[in-house]
């Protein structure tokens, strides 16, 4: 049964996808016309930690989302395999980032997953949008990381991209919609996360 809120969610998801596609143009222009270094702050250990906090938030949201889906939804076949495999990866990412932050990880966020795991369609659509969002978060922060931290984070980032391709294929979308992925900044990522409505208290 589909209700009004499910329709609204679909619109939101499409909006997120459209925004991501528009941002992709920035990277294309950048490939063709390299510009001098931007005014963004130079990478530092402190900045690495701030970026890892954002990564940890997103990994925790993902781990919670897949755990809830596995507990709650009658997942079968490839969809079940996808949820189980990806859930395991997100748990491993959470553990790795918590270890890197050495006790400065902070409390886990309160999640509101009722809508996202209400039915199989919601799960598929949310998984695809969430994975794309996380890919964008890692991509957008890459130039703000020190090379040593980037080396570690990139090992996670491409796995998220694989998840995104897989989730999109399952949802009937093109796994790779563009030749280059968008590079959203932190505010865009947080706005996209709010739009998905997975955090308690988000609009």
């Amino acid at each position, binding site marked *: 049964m589909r209700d009004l809120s499910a329709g609204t969610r679909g619109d939101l998801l499409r909006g997120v996808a459209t925004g991501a596609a528009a941002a992709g143009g920035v990277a294309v222009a950048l490939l063709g016309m*390299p510009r*001098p*270094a931007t005014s963004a702050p130079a990478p530092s250990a402190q900045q690495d930690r701030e970026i890892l906090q954002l990564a940890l938030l997103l990994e925790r949201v993902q781990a919670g989302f897949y755990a809830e889906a596995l507990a709650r939804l009658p997942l079968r076949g490839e969809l079940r395999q996808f949820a189980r495999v990806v859930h395991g990866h997100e748990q491993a990412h959470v553990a790795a980032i918590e270890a890197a932050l050495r006790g400065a990880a902070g409390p886990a966020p309160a999640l509101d997953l009722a809508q996202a795991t209400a039915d199989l369609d919601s799960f598929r659509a949310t998984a695809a949008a969430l994975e794309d969002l996380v890919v964008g978060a890692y991509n957008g922060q890459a130039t703000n990381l020190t090379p040593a931290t980037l080396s570690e984070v*990139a090992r996670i980032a491409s796995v998220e*991209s*694989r998840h995104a*391709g897989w989730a999109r294929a399952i949802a009937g979308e093109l796994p*790779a919609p563009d*030749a280059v992925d968008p590079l959203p900044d932190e505010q865009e990522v947080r706005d996209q996360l709010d739009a998905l409505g997975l955090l308690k208290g988000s609009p």
Partner: protein
Amino acid sequence: MTPLDRLLPFDRDGALAETFTRLQLLRGTAAVLGGAAVGAALAAGSASAASAAGDIAILDYALTLEELQAAFYSEAEHAGALDGALARQATVVGAHERAHVVALRRVLGGHASARPAFDFRGVTERPEQFRETAVAFEDLAVAVYKHEAPRIASREYLAAAIAIHSVEARHAAWIRRLAGILPAAHAFDEPLARARAMELVSSTGFIVARARTEGRSAPRFTG
């Protein structure tokens, strides 16, 4: 067996590998010379000559792998032996790889190496082999960009490499799913150093000095 080992079954011609190694040595020299020229041009700027030369070498190396992929998918599309989901993958991914080639060439300008000649030995006309090779190419590209990205000095070039890196990972997931293997097999992807990557590529014999014109003899390098 790691996905990268899937390239190894195609290693059927040691002579081609040897030719390829010579080709790489010569091209490596050209890249260093090209980098030195860039360094001189930027001497008055903020970028150091060393980092500019390093970036040029990395982007030129990436260009070689993108050329390899672009040629592979273009040939598969042209051959017309694929259908359904596999044909769609080849068409969409081929367009992406060609876009990467165009972008890298635009950035490199006169420092870009000449396009190598390729000989895929009929792999692009056999769907099973096409699929297996595509899996290897895409996993290889992910591992290569992951290794090179933190070594890029320019933030602009790093941003471009990162935006491509994740697309190659999407491609990898896509073709692995079509091949019936896990799109994301591990929680962490591993980088691959250049020497090992080039060893794998040369083992295929897919890159030749020029188009094969006669028999099975090793092509001569003339460029």
